[in-house]
């Protein structure tokens, strides 16, 4: 019976069916299914499939964001359970859009995927100067820094951010990922990032890999 519930939840996330998911979660909890199981065996597999479908061009922003809405409304119920996900250790991620870039939807989708997979995420917002990134890395205890840049014109600020972190002697403290539509491996290597991603699913999977290597 639990397996059936998990399938319903997984499908609810994939279909972006908020009402049915929340109803099923309450039903599951009432019948003694653990909150952790509901999250780890039902919801998270759903959002991961959604992320993959988005990456493969089967799902688009409306579908991704509706699934995100399901996770968001469900996460409100499961907040205490977001410290771990399945057998993989979740980490601490800090993220922002570089100075001059005020686009945030790509960044916000990555954050949604990370949180849905048990990561703790601090969102620095948009138009973040290198010195703020530096200060946050210095004062926090993060595993990964995510730098988002959607505009070609602001890509140099990603390099300035990484250079500022190096100059502050913080480079070995944190892994750095750079993301955004115009980002390439060539650019990421040139500026000294550890990884790059061009969509949320790629960002999540590479972040998980970086965490294992750390």
């Amino acid at each position, binding site marked *: 019976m639990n397996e059936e519930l998990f399938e319903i939840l997984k499908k609810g996330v994939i279909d*972006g069916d908020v009402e049915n998911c929340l109803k099923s979660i309450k039903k599951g909890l009432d019948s003694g299914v653990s909150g952790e199981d509901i999250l780890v065996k039902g919801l998270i597999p759903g959002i991961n499939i959604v992320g993959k479908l988005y990456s493969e061009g089967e799902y688009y922003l*409306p579908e991704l964001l*509706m699934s995100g809405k399901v996770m968001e409304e469900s996460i409100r119920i499961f907040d205490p359970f977001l410290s771990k996900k399945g057998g993989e250790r979740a980490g601490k991620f800090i993220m922002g859009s570089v100075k001059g870039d005020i686009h945030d939807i790509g960044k916000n989708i990555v954050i949604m995927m990370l949180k849905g997979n048990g990561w703790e995420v601090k969102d620095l917002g948009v*138009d973040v100067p290198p010195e703020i990134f530096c200060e946050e890395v210095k004062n926090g205890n993060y595993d990964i820094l995510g730098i988002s840049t959607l505009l070609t*014109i602001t890509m140099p600020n990603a390099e300035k951010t990484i250079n500022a972190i190096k100059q502050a002697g913080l480079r070995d403290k944190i892994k750095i990922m750079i993301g955004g*539509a115009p980002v390439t491996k060539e650019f990421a290597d040139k500026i000294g990032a550890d990884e790059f991603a061009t969509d949320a699913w790629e960002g999540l999977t590479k972040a998980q890999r970086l965490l294992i290597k750390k």
Partner: protein
Amino acid sequence: MKMTGTERVLTALAKKEPDRVPHMEIIIDPKVQQAILPGVSYEDFLDHMDIDGHVIFDKIYAWKYETVDEGRGIVRDQWGALTQFGSERLGHPIDRAIKTEKDLDAYVCPDADEEWRYDALKKWIKRFKGKKAIFAHVTDVFDIARESFLGDVAYYQAMIEKPELVDRVNQIVLEYNLKSIKNQIELGADALTITGDFAVTKGPMVSPKHTGRFLTPATKKQVELGHKMGVPVFKHTDGNLWKIMDLLIDTGIDGLHPIDPNAGMDLADVRNKYPNLCLMGNVDCAATLSWKSVEEVRQEVKSCIKKAGYGGGYICMSSNSIHSGVKPENYVAMINAIREFGKYPLELA
């Protein structure tokens, strides 16, 4: 015989061969323009560089803004959205105008008939009518309805949850745009530009089904009005458009810009599949115009003209705009290369 810029551009949009491949841009950043010709006005710059057309961009010339925080470059746009300006000429909304349906019930749409909106257009027509192609312009309905009205997340979610809300917001913007288009063409614009991205590097922002349901119908109505009033129309959208190309063609557009080279849009491939479409753009402004060499710019222009110029129907432009990161010498090299390689009949090895 040497054509005027107007003749050149309109000939290319009609998918015929002009005297040479036309060149124009949707936006040329003032910093680049001033670096090439310091102290010269934008109008004089277009004349001196013999650029064939100009777009009277609505967000720059015809929208109202109210300053909210001058230090941070934050204004409220005419739709009610908070918009932030950075280093480029166009700002980006950071907070939407409509947060609840009650906001929409009480909403008062800007008035497209206010005369001041057309002051810039009248000035350009007075100076350049018959010499350079003057483009009327509207930002597409999807762009405004999503960014300024509902915000990205709410708009995308409403496409699935509340399609009637999307229809309602789209209709408000469409009615404004249609009035604006009519006014601009009546004042003498030679052609119409509709800008607003439908795709990103990897593909369309929304599915083909949603593109056909919510995006292209409004574009089509704007194109139809342009045609009814006797002018050709081109659509600008970045990104990989392959999955929605047929939908775009179905709107009736005469031209498409920029045929994004970094998003898998090859000029030759588009030309082969859509022989009756005027192709515009494709000279890479992300890398080539920004940091590659003058010779690389020259070769890329040559390649673009070779792929799309034969038979006419190509306007050589950047792959988005001459933004502030473009090297001035590279933009000059681009224009020079268009003159070098773009004379009809083309003879490119």
